[in-house]
């Protein structure tokens, strides 16, 4: 082994702490790219494969009832390549438990052969046998949650009659990758499943023989979806068409796309932070290592070693750190990617979804990180090799100090000698101090961003389930019923308050912009469902006019006072012009709300409703659930409490995993910066500190001088990190706004406290490790040696 390599090996060993901490930062950078980008790619691949395999439709339309003979008309519309019709209904499941009732979304499949579009993918068991009208295929998430296997039977209340159905297969469809029960916001797998059954079973049961209430279309590549939608709506108008919508608005696809968007954004932001810190650390550590070896560099060059050889020697420190980090990061990234995809599997039912990092991605992550890290290293190495040997032979000029801005402002009087030393050291290298602080600030920011995601979801859920939805039970009716049902419901044992509501599908138009949406009619003085804006303030329902979500107002480009053309898609299908009375600054969905009686009036309806909110005595709930199961008109029963509880349960798991990784990632950065900066400081000022020890300074006093600088940088970093974190959170809240939800910009004070405390503790621990080195300072050496 050449002497230069022996030197390298020994110095690597003595710098192992620093090398490892840099390697970890590099590893985390690579890991975050491989995990996040890899899982994004995996999700997109699984989604596209699945959509193609199962012939995912491009346009959906629900309607009241149309004869099957209308299908050729839809098929022949320009741009349409295929059209399929079906009968779909929501039914209460008759399961042996007294909890909140479970519901099945029943979707018909052809009595013979497979659906043309949105085909069912069988995971276990088999497809329906021709002519077997009591067979069903159920969605795999529901089967898993309820422990159903092929061969089991399940009872469902179909059009008021309890029917026993045989489960022959467990499957999926691309329409239900993210399966949300009606009135819900996220999957509740034990309460909601999708049931595919023969048209022979569902058609007659729902009086849809030779008819359909839903159609799906696929379009040619060059078709204009908006034109097709207009055509479809025109054709179906007289059949009670509820407005066609494109794939982009299909609920499951919408959520999946929103999630992919978010994944892509954070997958780009987070790795950048780690890379930035790694570049800085390598520059700092190598730069310092080289500065302490000026004399040796001079000797090597005097002996005739070339710049390239000397440069390579020092670059090898970076190579070792980066290769170590690269190997760790690649392994960790693939492992973590697998776990990350596991969380997605909990929420999304994407068959074939598995984490796969392509060679290209691994190479990209590795190159991005190594090139970034080497950029820092090369800058330091270039400075060393450019030194002429004679100059390098002389010791570095003594450090030049002068009072900094702080003291020139006259504030220096407030400090003792120790304070002045610390302050001047910070001020002497303003750039290095700034970047150290920035590095630590980044780990504060990472924590803030990570916890912000949970804070905002919690805030949103709390607002929705505790403030807006104040009912104990919410009922949905299969069809409109007279408002007098409120009296029947009030008469039930344990029901203390009933408020009914009416929802009507409508098309809103402002100029050439339009949107299809359900207008909700609530009691103006209702207590159970209140209309609240983002700050939790109640918005009174006006006697005339609409209250609309700000997201919708943006989409339609309207403000308070503007007129909207409302075209009802049900009943008499009236067209009315209505003013926007208030814009609701809410988070979820695109709501259009009216006072209930005003809604009846302008839609030309009698007093009919299609749902009710109830306050009930908790002891009466099991009995009431049983009763509602037998009400033919009730197709949906839900409870905000149970929804919130199961949501929190689900979230808690993901949150635990995510928090662990966030803390680990932020910790790696904080340790990397503080430990390295303190080690460098110790090597630069070891002689000075030892002199102080000789003069009678205690270890703790010397430690304060050494680590006080890191302490100040950490304390500066915390507000800096919070500001950066707030900024990024704010940008994310705006950037992640989708058509269906807005992320509230809410950061819990607890997030700030945890982030700050964690960084202080991590910094203190890193400092403590360095402090122990003070014990090994040789007091005798400083009497003799010169720097």
């Amino acid at each position, binding site marked *: 082994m050449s002497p230069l390599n022996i030197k390298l090996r020994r110095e690597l060993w003595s710098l192992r702490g620093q090398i490892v901490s840099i390697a970890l930062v590099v590893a985390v950078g690579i890991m975050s790219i491989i995990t996040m980008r890899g899982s994004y790619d995996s999700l997109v691949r699984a989604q596209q494969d699945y959509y193609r395999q199962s012939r995912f439709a491009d346009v959906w339309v629900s309607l009241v009832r149309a004869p099957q003979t209308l299908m050729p008309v839809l098929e022949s519309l320009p741009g349409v390549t295929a059209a399929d019709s079906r009968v779909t209904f929501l039914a209460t499941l008759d399961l042996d438990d007294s909890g909140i009732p479970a519901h099945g979304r029943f979707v018909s499949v052809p009595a013979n052969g497979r659906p043309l579009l949105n085909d069912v993918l069988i995971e276990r068991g088999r497809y329906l046998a021709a002519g077997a009208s009591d067979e069903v295929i159920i969605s795999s998430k529901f089967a898993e949650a309820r422990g159903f296997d092929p061969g089991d039977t399940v009872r469902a209340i179909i059009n008021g009659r309890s029917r026993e159905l045989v489960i022959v297969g467990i499957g999926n469809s691309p329409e239900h990758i993210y399966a949300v029960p009606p009135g819900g916001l996220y999957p509740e797998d034990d309460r909601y499943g999708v049931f595919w059954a023969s048209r022979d079973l569902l058609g007659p049961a729902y009086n849809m023989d030779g008819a359909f209430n839903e159609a799906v279309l696929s379009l040619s590549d060059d078709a204009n979806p908006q034109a097709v939608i207009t055509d479809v709506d025109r054709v179906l108008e007289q059949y009670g068409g509820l407005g066609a919508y494109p794939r982009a608005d299909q609920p499951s696809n919408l959520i999946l796309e929103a999630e992919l968007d978010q994944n892509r954004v954070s997958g780009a932001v987070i790795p950048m932070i780690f890379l930035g810190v790694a570049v800085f650390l390598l520059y700092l550590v190598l730069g310092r290592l080289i500065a302490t070896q000026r004399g040796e560099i001079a000797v090597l060059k005097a002996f005739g070693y070339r710049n390239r050889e000397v440069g390579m020697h020092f670059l090898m420190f970076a190579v070792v750190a980066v290769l170590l980090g690269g190997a760790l990061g690649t392994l960790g990234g693939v492992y973590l990617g697998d776990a990350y995809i596991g969380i997605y599997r909990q929420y999304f039912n994407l068959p074939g979804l598995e984490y796969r990092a392509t060679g290209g991605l691994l190479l990209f992550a590795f190159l991005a990180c190594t090139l970034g890290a080497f950029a820092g290293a090369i800058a330091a190495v270039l400075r060393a090799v450019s030194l002429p040997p004679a100059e390098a032979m002389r010791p570095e*000029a*003594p*450090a*030049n*100090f*002068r009072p900094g801005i702080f003291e020139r402002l006259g504030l220096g009087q407030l400090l*003792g*000698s*120790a304070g*002045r*030393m610390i302050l*001047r*050291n910070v001020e*002497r290298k303003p750039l290095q101090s700034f970047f150290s602080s920035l590095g630590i600030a980044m780990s504060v920011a990472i924590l803030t961003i990570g916890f912000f995601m949970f804070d905002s979801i919690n805030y949103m859920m709390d607002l929705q389930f505790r403030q807006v939805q104040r009912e104990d039970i919410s009922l949905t009716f299969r069809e409109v019923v007279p408002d007098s049902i409120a009296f029947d419901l009030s008469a039930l044992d344990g029901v203390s308050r009933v408020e009914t509501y009416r929802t009507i599908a409508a098309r809103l138009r402002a100029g050439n912009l339009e949107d299809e949406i359900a207008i909700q009619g609530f009691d103006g003085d209702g207590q159970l469902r209140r209309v609240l804006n983002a700050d939790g303030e109640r918005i009174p329902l006006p006697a005339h006019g609409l209250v609309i979500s700000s997201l919708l107002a943006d989409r339609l480009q309207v403000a308070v006072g503007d007129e909207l053309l409302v075209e009802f898609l049900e009943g008499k299908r009236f067209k009315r012009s209505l003013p926007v009375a208030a814009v609701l600054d809410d988070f979820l969905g695109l709501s259009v709300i009216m006072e209930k009686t005003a809604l009846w009036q302008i839609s030309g309806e009698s007093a009919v409703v299609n749902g009710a909110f109830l306050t009930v005595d908790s002891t009466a709930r099991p009995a009431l659930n049983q009763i509602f199961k037998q009400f033919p008109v009730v197709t949906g029963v839900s409870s905000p409490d149970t929804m919130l509880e199961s949501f929190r349960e689900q979230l808690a798991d993901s949150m635990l995993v995510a928090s662990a990784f966030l803390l680990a990632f932020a910790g790696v950065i904080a340790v990397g910066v503080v430990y390295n900066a303190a080690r460098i400081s110790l090597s630069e000022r070891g*002689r*000075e500190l030892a*002199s*102080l*020890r*000789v*003069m*009678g*300074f*205690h*270890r703790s006093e010397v430690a304060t001088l050494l680590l006080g600088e890191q302490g100040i940088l950490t304390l500066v970093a915390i507000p800096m990190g919070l500001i950066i974190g707030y900024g990024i959170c704010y940008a994310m809240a705006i950037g992640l706004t989708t058509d269906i939800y807005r992320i509230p910009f809410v950061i819990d004070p607890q997030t700030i406290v945890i982030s700050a405390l964690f960084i202080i503790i991590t910094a203190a621990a890193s400092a403590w490790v360095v402090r122990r080195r003070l014990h090994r300072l040789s*007091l*005798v050496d*400083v*009497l*003799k*040696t*010169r*720097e």
Partner: protein
Amino acid sequence: MGEITVHALRDVNLDLQQGEMTVLLGASGSGKSTLLNIIGGLDVASSGEVNYMGRNLSEFTERQLTDYRRFHVGFVFQFYNLISSLTARENVALVTELASDPMQPEEALAMVGLSDRVNHFPSQLSGGEQQRVAIARAIAKRPNILLCDEPTGALDAETGKLVLKVLDRVNTETRTTTAIITHNAAIGAMGDTVVRMSSGSIAEHHRNASRADVDSIEW
């Protein structure tokens, strides 16, 4: 390979008299630095006793040794070892802040003739000036014992003499027990006693009839 015990010092018996100046002479490796380290509380003798005002330093804990250095010993180093981020006055104040009955930093700096350089940083001072700041720093806490390790080792003869004069003056005016370590035999003339070390033992120990004037010393 077995371990070999090397005795840096052997059979050393030495008294430093209150208020006197002792010059410890010896070549490199003679053990003079080890002796100074032991007297200064930087190192502990593996056997034997070091008595300071009736207490045995060999039995001191690490903390007691630090306090001993803090309150009783002043050090002057060969390479000055000033804190580069502090001005001359602040370097002195660094030590006076710790002491119980210190001089004012300005007073100590006046004593070494640097009244006009108090606000200069080490990088703005010459070597001789830096060493005089170091002396001011060492005496400002009014130590009982002042230990100087090759105080002129890094200086030219002219500047070295200037520094020795300051030490001579400080010793005369403050009556601080002073020990100067040097390999430069000529300096021996300025001490009350001269101790010559060789191979870890005291080779010669004699009192000068009178202390020579620093100006008369030549090397």
